[in-house]
């Protein structure tokens, strides 16, 4: 996915006759504005959180990289939004295969383990990418293709299609599970359940998936599949005062940071928890604590509001989609962004288990930023398509 300038794509972009004026006209500006404010606005908090991380070195190192990431992500979103619908459908299996290969690469010497999860690929020049982020995109695209297949004749997907979709989704999810990245598995599962539900599949599929998912989680727990550190991370939010484990420490420090922010916050660069690095990875997974501490309730509420606007526009696109394929893509993206935002902010606020998922559009980290904007590009694509028809 990191090489968008393929010959085929370039040809297609050139071939499009739609005028620039009409493209801009068809864009969902609310959606774009909300995402843009989130990403650009987040950079000051990334700066604040990371200033002291490279003491003696360049204090703006993370800020600069964050801004570069946003720029690249905007270009990716632009390209994705302008890709032809049919091409998107046609190349879905290729994206899917690339995502599987990416995940498998993690097990080669290129792979790196960060925060207990072997989910990264180490690239030359200190860059790392997280293939599972792109796998979310691949799952959405392949499921949309499978579940929207042959829809002209029947009112709902055949059981065979649903089974195929689940089988295709199970491969990347299983691989990510093997990487101990439970957070991403959770997000992927919500995407799958949502898409199956929205596809109009029979209710037994939906209930079966929900019951099966919950049962699987419980069984995994009981059989000890979940390693101790995972349990510690998951349960620390229940007993946060017990600072024995690192996870509990994280949860506690995060709540102290946010709680101490008050209404207006401590001011940029003035948050004692942030500046003292009490909250770990506060430029990425715990970026919300920085916003909460330094910009207070006002800043944190605006962040939630912007995410809500984004989801509201995504929801409108899904509801307004003229064909099932577009609706499925849009609802998959909405579920992804909604549940990942909830999981991330929830763990910052101490009401969700601590799993290493970033906050879309906000957290520092190239892969997450690219994936978020690609997701946005998909939403815009569906919207443009629905207005064309």
């Amino acid at each position, binding site marked *: 996915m990191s090489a968008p300038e393929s010959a085929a794509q370039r040809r297609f972009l050139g071939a499009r006759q739609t005028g620039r004026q009409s493209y801009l006209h068809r864009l969902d500006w609310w959606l774009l504005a909300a995402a843009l404010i989130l990403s650009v606005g987040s950079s000051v908090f990334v700066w604040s959180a990371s200033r*002291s991380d490279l003491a003696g070195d360049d204090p703006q190192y993370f800020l600069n990289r964050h801004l570069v990431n946003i720029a690249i992500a905007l270009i990716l979103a632009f390209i994705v939004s302008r890709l032809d619908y049919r091409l998107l459908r046609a190349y879905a299996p290729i994206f899917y295969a690339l995502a599987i290969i990416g995940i498998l690469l993690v097990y080669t010497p290129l792979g790196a383990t960060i925060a207990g999860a072997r989910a990264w690929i180490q690239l030359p020049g200190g860059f790392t990418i997280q293939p599972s982020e792109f796998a979310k995109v691949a799952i959405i695209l392949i499921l949309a293709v499978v579940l929207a297949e042959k*829809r*002209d004749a029947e*009112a*709902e997907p055949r059981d065979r299609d649903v089974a195929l979709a689940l089988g295709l989704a199970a491969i990347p999810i299983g691989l990510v599970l093997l990487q101990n990245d439970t957070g991403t598995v959770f997000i992927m599962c919500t995407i799958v359940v*949502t898409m199956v*539900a*929205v*596809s*109009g599949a029979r209710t037994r599929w*939906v209930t079966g998936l929900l019951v099966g998912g919950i049962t699987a989680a419980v069984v995994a727990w009981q059989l000890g599949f979940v390693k101790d550190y995972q349990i510690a991370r998951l349960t620390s939010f229940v007993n946060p005062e017990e600072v024995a484990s690192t996870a509990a420490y994280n949860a506690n*420090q995060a*709540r*102290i*940071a*946010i*709680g*101490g*922010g*008050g*209404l207006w916050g401590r001011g940029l660069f003035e948050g*004692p*928890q942030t500046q*003292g*690095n*009490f909250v770990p990875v506060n430029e990425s997974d715990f970026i919300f604590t920085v916003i*909460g*501490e330094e910009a*207070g*309730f006002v800043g*944190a*509420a605006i962040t*939630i509001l912007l*995410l*809500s606007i984004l*989801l509201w526009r995504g*929801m409108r696109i*899904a*509801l307004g989609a*003229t*064909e*099932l394929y577009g*609706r499925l893509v849009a*609802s998959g993206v*909405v*579920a992804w962004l*909604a*549940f990942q935002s*909830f999981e991330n*902010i*929830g763990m910052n*606020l*101490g*009401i969700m288990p601590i799993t290493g998922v970033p906050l879309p559009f906000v957290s520092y980290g190239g892969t997450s930023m690219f994936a978020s904007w690609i997701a946005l590009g998909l939403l815009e694509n569906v919207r443009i398509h629905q207005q064309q*028809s």
Partner: protein
Amino acid sequence: MSDRSAMSDRSHLRLVVLGVLIVSLVATLSARLFYLQLVVGDEYAAQAASNTTREVVTPAVRGLILDQRGRPLVANRTSLVVSVDSAVLAREDDDGDAVLGRLAEALGVARSTIEQKLMPCGSEGAPPLPVCWDGSPYQPVPVAKDVDTETALTIMERRADFPGVTAQLEAVREYPGPFDANLAHVLGYVGPVTQEKIDAQGGSTDPARLRARDLVGRNGLEAQYDGELRGIPGITTLAVDQVGRVTGTVAESEAVAGNFVVTTVDAHLQSVVEAAIADSVERAREAGEIADTGAAVVIDVSNGAVLAMASYPTYDPQLWVGGISTRDYERLLADRALSSTVTQGTYAPGSTFKAVTTVAAAREGYDLNGTYPCPADYQVGSQLFRNFESSGFGPITLARALEVSCNTVFYRIADEIWLKGGGLFAPVGAPDPIAETAASFRLGEQTGIDLPNEAAGLVSGRDEKLLVWEQRRETWCADAKEGFSDLRKENLTLALYYTALAKENCLDGFRWRNGDAINASIGQGDTSITPLQLAMTYAAIANGGTVYQPQVAKAVLSSRGEVVQEFSAVVRSTVAAPEGTFDFLRTALATVTTEGTGRVPFEGFPLDQIPIASKTGSAQVFSDNSTTAWFASFAPADDPKYAVVMMVTRGGTGSVTVGPAVRTIYDAIFGVVDGVVIPEQSVFIGGAPSQTLPMVRPDGTPVVPDGPLAQRPTSVSSTIRGPSP
């Protein structure tokens, strides 16, 4: 819109369900955010503050206490103190049993000594207060002071053998004892601050606030002026990150050394007074008296300044340094050495009170130069009141009555005043001139001296008797009803007598009888006063009726010598009396010394140059059939400067027991050697109390006048060099 129909309603419905789910998730996050930041936010803000800063406290040097010439009475030195952290001991398998054993051995003390100091006050089997630990339970308890370097090194090097035990240099109080003056009851002592006191401060962030491990004054001047003496510790607030690495200095404040308290006490005079009271006690004991306690005080009559003040027995204030041991404490308690007899003991003043009765008589219109009969006894109803110290003298002047301490003259006066005031059936609020005069001398209430825990005493009188009756009536009536049945079998007569007494008290114990009035006139009955109160009374008679508030502190200086506060004389009241009353008393009391009961001790004293006004007293204590020996005086009688009061309980007569000791005090004040006045020999430099404040050098050392400045033998640890306290 061709695909539109293809999409089932089910799909649409499920999307709406997704939308509702998302709305509820957003609502959940918003509510949680609101709760965390706006409802319980303050709590987290406080946690964040304590999370990120650490305070490093540099203790302030406690201020010195100086005598009026700048001689240090209390100073500081460093001492190696061994402390035990009970919390660490409790984590040992045997609750620290083995550690305590090893520690006791290393320190060369009994292990019970250590154990007792570790016990929190109020816990089972804990020793009484000063021994048991009433400091913060989270702090190590000091168990030994002045430990030698070798022992300290042993403890610090064998960490494994001594978990929870530390040895470190700490600043402790030192008592240089100029002229060997002890002054224990005036100086007081310091001890660890109690947890209650720390808690009482709430969440104070004042840098001068009390912290666990702080030492505070627990008695005497140390307690009274604790706020001045304590100083402000230096606080360095360091910013730290999550692993405790110091990331910077948030705030820094220098320690401010405690202020110096300059007292009115003259150390040289004090040492003389201490020797004199010890001498009185000695003399009484040689004469077969018990003489268990004593007191002496010298007051500047012109302002109420306490020039010397001593209680007997006393103790070595050094015993409190680093915590007192049970044995020492129990010994001091048994000896009654802990309380100040001067300010906390109350006793019947006996004949010394006649000076007050004389003022009352003058106020009632009695002719001070008139003649009054002095029979051997005075009959009131069926009771016969005798002269104690004299037989009958026939008709004599009032001055002569004071001179020979004739009781019957005062009995008659008191009886007449009582009758005039309404007698037995006087209404509530009827005049009671003797009690009123005593009240105008401010007897029966605290003098307001700047020392803690002062006693108020009691003045016997009409109102006082009613008050006592109201308090005790129920007991009396119950006793009268019950009739002392226990006693009946053993001693019927006594039981019947007690029953009759209880019945009388129950029925009309509130009545102020003439017998009561007669007793009160000579300082007997319920009247009880502190030696300090009597000294202030005689000082007031000497200066013409001005009752001053006694004051021990003269000024507060900063550690660099600037005057922070200077205490001026406080007038509590002025005793109203007819013109010439106090002149009469000054003359009459001077003749007590030349011709009366005070004559013998002052034989050979140059009274022609320095006339001394005095009054002896031998107050009867009915409970143990003993007498309290009093000697109240002031001098020079014609131009009074000093009032000296001394007393010994169960000590015989004032003239024999106490008089000679008071004389040695006057010898020292006026520089009398072998009956000759040599002003240069006065204990006061320049012959009078200092009118100026002592100088303190910028480095914090006081300028001390030349002359003997006796140092106590230095202890081992004072030779150890360490960081200055």
